[in-house]
């Protein structure tokens, strides 16, 4: 966290005058407040912050932020945000999306924005259900899940957001529970600092249509044993007694207990988020017991706009065209007298 710059804002400066209309008890409130608390820590001007959302419960988010914002159309926020960032590289551009918005109707934009690595921050509110349309299964709903549109159980296997994202070349992927605002806030700050597309998946509970979807990982009583919160450069240790950790056994990640079978802390894998090879990151994303949270991947790479700008500067340096008239009157012209 930058400490040199004096803080210009408090979270209140990022609250709009609009009444927040999410259902009581929704994790969306936690995410909203975490974003509002993270922004003053980033050292950026409010005038330079833009939130672009698609359609869905989560996509009302921009209305509640006292920044620039656009509540756009279903699934297209990554493409709109790309246009904003390419038009003005100095802006801090955030995409607010849900599991249906990003991985169903907007799946194409979602994978391509990650592939290009434009410097955007995408917060994915994954509640594994369609909320705004009142309770149909989503592309992350579980097989067998009974919803309004699958009364006898869902028959479509789910996407894992992290697997999909890393498969689409995401350089930054983090996952966090919807009820851990402190860690969430820190991840948002790191995501903004990271130059490139950052994807943060929030395991967000929908208390109305899919209550408890993540409780086996996020309930306070089980969290310490069922979540492994990873930090770059630190051994991947978890558990109430901080005595469990990950080791690599042949090609599989396994949980080992420190002090048992001769396992010491030195045997536990140290998390390297910056590694370009995504193999281990994918394995971490796939783990279910424990589920891995924190910044899983943070591989620094050139951004799309850096490539574009470099190319533009090179072309400009070589070109003899400075004004459009130079072009219009160049080459094969002829005079009529």
């Amino acid at each position, binding site marked *: 966290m930058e400490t040199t710059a004096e803080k210009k804002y408090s979270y209140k400066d990022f609250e709009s005058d609009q009444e927040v209309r999410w259902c009581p008890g929704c994790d969306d409130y936690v995410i909203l407040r975490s974003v509002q608390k993270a922004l003053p820590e980033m050292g950026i001007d409010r005038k330079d912050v833009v939130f672009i959302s698609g359609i869905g419960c989560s996509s009302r988010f921009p209305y509640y932020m006292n920044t*620039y914002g656009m*509540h756009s159309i279903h699934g297209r926020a990554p493409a709109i945000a790309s*246009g*904003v960032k390419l038009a*003005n590289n100095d*802006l801090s551009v955030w995409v607010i999306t849900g599991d249906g918005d990003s991985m169903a109707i907007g799946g194409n*934009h979602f994978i391509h924005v990650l592939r290009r690595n434009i410097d955007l921050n995408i917060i994915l509110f994954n509640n594994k259900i369609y909320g705004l349309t009142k309770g149909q299964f989503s592309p992350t709903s579980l097989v067998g899940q009974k919803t309004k549109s699958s009364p006898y159980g869902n028959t479509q296997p789910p996407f894992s957001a992290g697997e999909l994202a890393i498969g689409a070349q995401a350089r930054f992927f983090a996952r966090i529970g919807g009820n851990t605002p402190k860690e969430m806030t820190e991840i948002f700050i790191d995501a903004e600092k990271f130059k490139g597309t950052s994807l943060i998946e929030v395991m967000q509970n929908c208390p109305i249509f899919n209550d408890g979807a993540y409780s086996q990982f996020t309930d306070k009583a089980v969290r310490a044993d069922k979540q492994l919160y990873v930090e770059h450069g630190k051994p991947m240790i978890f558990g109430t007694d901080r005595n469990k950790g990950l080791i690599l056994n042949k090609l599989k990640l396994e949980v080992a207990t420190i002090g048992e079978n001769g396992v010491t802390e030195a045997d536990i894998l140290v998390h390297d988020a910056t590694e370009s090879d995504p193999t281990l990151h994918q394995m971490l994303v796939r783990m279910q017991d424990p589920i891995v949270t924190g910044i899983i991947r943070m591989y620094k790479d050139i951004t799309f706009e850096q490539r574009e700008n470099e190319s533009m500067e090179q072309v400009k340096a070589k070109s003899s065209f400075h004004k459009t008239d130079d072009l219009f009157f160049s080459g094969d012209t002829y005079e*009529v007298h």
Partner: protein
Amino acid sequence: MANSKLNNLAEVLESVVIRFVGDSGDGMQLTGTQFSDTSAMFGNDIATFPNYPAEIRAPQGSLYGVSGFQVHIGSVEISTPGDEVDLLVAMNPAGLKTNLYAVKPGHTIIVDTDSFTKKNLEKAHYESNPLDDGSLSNYRVIEVEMTTLTKEALKDIEGLDNKSITRTKNMFALGMVYWMYDRSPAHTIEFFEKKFASKPNIIEANTKVLNTGLYYAETLELIPNAYTISPAKMNPGTYRIIMGNTATAWGFLAAAEKSGLELFLGSYPITPASDILHELAKHKHFGVKTFQAEDEIAGIASTIGASFAGDLAITTTSGPGLALKGEAIGLAMMIELPIVIVNVQRGGPSTGLPTKTEQSDLMQALYGRNGESPVIVIAASTPSNCFNYAYEASKLALEHMTPVILLTDGYIANGSAPWKILSTEDMPPINNRIISKATENWHPYDRDDATLARNWAIPGTAGLEHRVGGLEKDRVSGNVSYVPENHEYMTKIRAEKIKRVQDYIPEITTEFATSGDLLVVGWGGTYGSLHSAVKHMNEEGYDSIGYAHFNYINPLPKNTETLLKQFKKIVVCELNGGQFANLLRMKFNDIELIQFNKIQGLPFGNAELMEKFKQLLK
């Protein structure tokens, strides 16, 4: 070149239509372009029309693999590529078979006899060789062993494989046509020198074959006559030959410079619009940002994002792509951001006829969205005025804070014509509505009293932070509003905003008669055909026929109704089933309209138009 000899032979004509046809790999587009560029530099007026198959390399020799390029050159004003052909150059039997219908009886056909093999004749579904069976007796056929002569000419040049050798035979044909029309090969040789700078043997080969064709035509008595086309009387100035799609791209370059904004293009490749993307991608030196998106929707979505952030933002597409962009156009209309959507129309519906022309997206442009969502719709009418209308689309979008749909079509987009170059300095000013600081009690939906356009508050400006979105918004604050009366008010004010554009566009005028028996009405890319047909009618003494051509479709010019009522009969001519006619009927339901429609993927022909007009004047 022996000009004195030539002049003795010359038969001075006002204009000539030449069509080059061959296999899609035979280089006919290049041959045609070289001929038209050379002619334009000589001072002719020209109009061209490429006609190529949708398949990139259709099976060799097949009927559907035929690629053609037509050029109309003249010493008088030329407004169409012409419909009847004076000279057909056919590189193979399939080309002859598919194009013979267009050749005027008694006129000339040059064929490469080497390609008239049994196999190629079969592929072209010829039962007997048309060169032998007398079926071409009504034409002047010039048989040339072009492939053999090309090979012979290149036998001493080293480092050429068989394929490279036969590929140059189109230059043999071009050389012959250059001689026939008294054109210098210099421009084409310069072109080789630039294009193949690193391959001297290719430059040598092409130049050699071009000259060989030219000398062959000069010396062989097989050619019965030669024509010279003297320069056309055109307004003095500096000209260049420009294709419609290039002119569109340049119009946006000029508008960006004039408005002081950066140009952003979000686009997805689609025939026949891709050339606008290709052209703008070249111009990074002007700071142009071209973003080839993952699909049509991302093309326009990124455009909306760039507009939100303060760029002159445009997207380019053709019919099917416009369908995909519908929802996003609705968003841009709702949040009242300036964007331009170019639709280079092609034959529809569905995938339709991608490489052919049509005007059948008019209704889609006007109404192809959910809800009441009016936008400005304008249409260019010639290859060169694509420049003006791209500029105008940008100006209207920026000054009225609305999406503008610019319609062109495959015919004018791929056609080329002389363009008297416009300097950006001489273009009308563009006043964008960006505001740099908050005034007291500022709201995002405050409107200009005259135009009803809102201000453009872009991210990065302190004090103007605000939210926009697709939900209905309060008339003042822009916050989400579900109030019934507010929705009705906003729906009406968005419509009124577009209607008021009438005060900022020119009135419609007529050419030829200003009142009388018959008014010919057209819009968009049919200008050349319609203008030329009415002009011929006029020259034949029909003086009660007038012509009105619409470039502004929504809103229509203010005086439209008054003008229509000056004539006893009105015929609306369109390359569709009658969409503009229906629009006029909807607006002016007491005016009777006759329709003349063609839906063949081809432009109107002069003869069919004149026949119709004469019938209506009886």
